[in-house]
C-alpha cells in the first residue's frame, strides 16, 4: 500500500534537512546508538551501571595471545595467526557465533570495523566509551565474547593460558585507562587451583570488582575441588558471576536446526543447570556471604526454576539435606541480570519481577554490542515499575553489590536500596 497524501495540509519547506547515514559494519557506535542517546537525555539523572557488556577480544587477538605465559602456546598462537586471520588462534569458535549478526542484518554484532583515530587510549576503551556515552551509562562491566565458550574447549591448558592472557590484557591495558570500565577476573574453571591463582594475582587489581565463571561447561560447580576457591572469593567480599552462553554442540542442542531455537534454550540451560546444583547442594548454606550473580538469560527461567524446585523439594527434601529453607528462598537472594529481557506478556513479566525480588536482586545489563542488546529504556519504560525500583535495577542495586561509588549529583532524591 503506497503512502498516499491528500495534500490538503499546510505546505512548507523545511528549515533544516540532513541525510542520516545507512548503518553498516563500519558505522561509528555513536551513529548506531544515536537514538539511544536521545532516550538517555530523559534518564540523565539516573545512575546507570551496565553489569554485562562485552569487549570484542578477537579484534585484539594479537595483543592478547602475545601475553600468553607459555612460550610454547605463544608460539603456537603466533604461527596460527600467521596462517589464517579467519580462524582465531587457539579458539574453539562455535557454529552459532557466525550467526549472531543475522547475515548482515545487525552490523554491530559482526565485529568492530568502525574508525578509531584516538591515539591516547586503547581502541577498545574508545569503543566502550562511545557506547557508554551514547546510552547514558555511568559504568560498564565488560566480559569477553567468544572466550565465553572456552569451557567446552577440548584442551584444558588452552583455557588456562588464554584466560591468564586475557586477565593480564584487561588489568594492564584496558581497565587502567578508564575508571568507568570495570572487569571481573576470568576464572579458568577447568582447574580449581588455577582459579585460586587467578584470584590471588588479579583479584585486587584496579578496576576488578569480582570474579566470573564462563559457565558454558559441564563441570559440576558443587564439586569439592572448588570449596577453597569459593572460600577465597567469599573472603574477598566480591561477587562471583556465572556468565552463561550457548553451545550448539551440546547433544540436546544438536536437535535444533535454527540459531534462534538454540540461542533461546542453550543460555538458559546452563544457568538452570548450575543454579540447580548450587542450591540443591546447599552452597548458600556453606558460603552464606558469597554473593552470586547469574548473567545473560533474561529472567523468565528464574521464576520457572523456583517453582519447579520447590515443588520437588517438598517431596524429596532428603536429597537436599543441607537446605533449611525452600530452594526459592535461596534463589530469591541471588542476583540476576536483565538482558535479554522477556516482555511479550507484560503481566507475566511483572509477576516474574515480583517473584525474583527485582527491587533488590535484579541488575540492569545491556549485553552491548551483541545482537539482542537492551538499552536502558528496556527498564525505564517498564510500566509496572515504580520510579525507585527503576533506579534500583538500573544502577543502585549494582552499586551496592559491587561497592561502586555513586556520584553525588546522582544521589539526590534516591534512598538506598534495601540489600540483604
Amino acid at each position, binding site marked *: 500500500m*503506497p503512502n*498516499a497524501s491528500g495534500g490538503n*495540509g*499546510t*505546505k512548507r519547506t523545511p528549515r533544516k*534537512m540532513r541525510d*542520516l547515514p545507512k548503518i553498516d559494519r563500519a558505522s561509528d557506535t555513536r551513529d548506531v546508538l544515536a*537514538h539511544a542517546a536521545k532516550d538517555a537525555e530523559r534518564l540523565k539523572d539516573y545512575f546507570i551501571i551496565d553489569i554485562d557488556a562485552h569487549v570484542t577480544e578477537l579484534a585484539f587477538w594479537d595483543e592478547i595471545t602475545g601475553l600468553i605465559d607459555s612460550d610454547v602456546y605463544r608460539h603456537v598462537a603466533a604461527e596460527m595467526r600467521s596462517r589464517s586471520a579467519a580462524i582465531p588462534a587457539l579458539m574453539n569458535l562455535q557454529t552459532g557465533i557466525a550467526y549472531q549478526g543475522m547475515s548482515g*542484518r545487525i552490523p554491530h554484532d559482526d565485529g568492530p570495523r568502525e574508525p578509531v583515530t584516538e591515539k591516547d587510549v586503547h581502541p577498545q576503551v574508545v569503543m566502550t566509551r562511545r557506547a557508554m556515552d551514547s546510552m547514558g551509562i555511568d559504568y560498564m562491566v565488560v566480559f569477553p565474547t567468544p572466550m565465553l565458550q572456552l569451557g567446552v574447549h577440548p584442551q584444558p591448558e588452552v583455557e588456562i593460558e588464554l584466560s591468564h592472557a586475557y586477565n593480564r590484557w584487561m588489568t594492564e591495558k584496558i581497565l587502567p585507562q578508564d575508571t568507568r570500565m570495570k572487569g571481573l577476573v576470568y576464572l579458568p574453571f577447568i582447574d580449581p587451583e588455577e582459579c585460586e591463582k587467578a584470584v590471588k594475582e588479579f583479584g585486587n587489581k584496579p578496576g576488578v570488582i569480582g570474579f566470573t565463571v564462563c559457565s558454558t561447561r559441564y563441570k559440576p560447580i558443587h564439586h569439592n575441588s572448588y570449596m577453597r576457591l569459593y572460600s577465597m572469593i567469599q573472603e574477598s567480599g566480591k561477587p562471583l558471576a556465572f556468565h552463561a552462553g550457548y553451545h550448539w554442540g551440546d547433544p540436546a542442542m544438536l536437535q535444533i536446526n535454527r540459531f534462534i531455537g538454540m540461542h533461546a534454550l542453550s543460555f538458559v540451560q546452563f544457568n538452570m543447570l548450575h543454579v540447580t546444583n548450587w542450591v540443591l547442594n546447599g552452597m548458600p548454606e556453606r558460603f552464606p556471604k558469597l554473593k552470586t550473580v547469574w548473567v545473560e538469560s533474561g529472567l523468565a527461567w528464574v521464576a520457572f526454576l523456583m517453582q519447579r524446585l520447590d515443588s520437588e523439594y517438598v517431596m524429596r527434601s532428603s536429597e537436599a539435606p543441607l537446605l533449611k529453607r525452600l530452594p526459592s528462598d535461596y534463589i530469591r537472594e541471588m542476583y540476576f541480570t536483565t538482558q535479554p529481557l522477556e516482555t511479550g506478556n507484560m503481566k507475566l513479566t511483572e509477576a516474574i519481577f515480583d517473584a525474583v525480588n527485582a527491587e533488590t536482586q535484579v541488575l540492569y545489563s545491556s549485553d552491548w554490542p551483541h545482537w539482542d542488546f*537492551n538499552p536502558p529504556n528496556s527498564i525505564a519504560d517498564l510500566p509496572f515499575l515504580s520510579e525507585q525500583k527503576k533506579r534500583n535495577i538500573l544502577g543502585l542495586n549494582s552499586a551496592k553489590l559491587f561497592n561502586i561509588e555513586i556520584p553525588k549529583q546522582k544521589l539526590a532524591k534516591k534512598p538506598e536500596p534495601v540489600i540483604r
Partner: protein
Amino acid sequence: MTETLIGTLKEFPDGDYRIIDIDGFEVGVFRRGTTFYAYENRCPHYGGPVCQGKILHRVEERLGDDQSSRGLRFAPEEHIICPWHGVEFDLKTGRHAGHSHYRLRAIPARVQADEVYLDLPG
C-alpha cells in the same frame, strides 16, 4: 499534518532509499519506480533507527505437497530491517511478518511535478 517538500524526483534514485532528518523528525524515504514509501525512523521494538538498516528480501520456507520442508529462499517482497536487533518490516506495508502489533509509522508521501512531498506530523 504539514505537507513538506523534501526534494526533487532525481534526488531519490529508483530502488534506493534515503533517511532524512527534517527539522528534528527522522524519516526513511524509499522509492520504488514512481511510488514512494516513507516511515518514521523509529522501530516500535526498542526505538532503534529502523530505516537506517539494510533492505533484504523476505525469507520464506518452501513446502512440498506432503508438507515436508523444501528449504529457504528469498521471496519477492522487500523488508526494512532495523539494525539494532534485526526486526523486519514489509517495505510496502510497514508491517512485521508475525507480530500484528508491530508496524512502522507510515508517513504519507506523494510526487507532484517532479517534487517529492511528505505529510509530516505537526
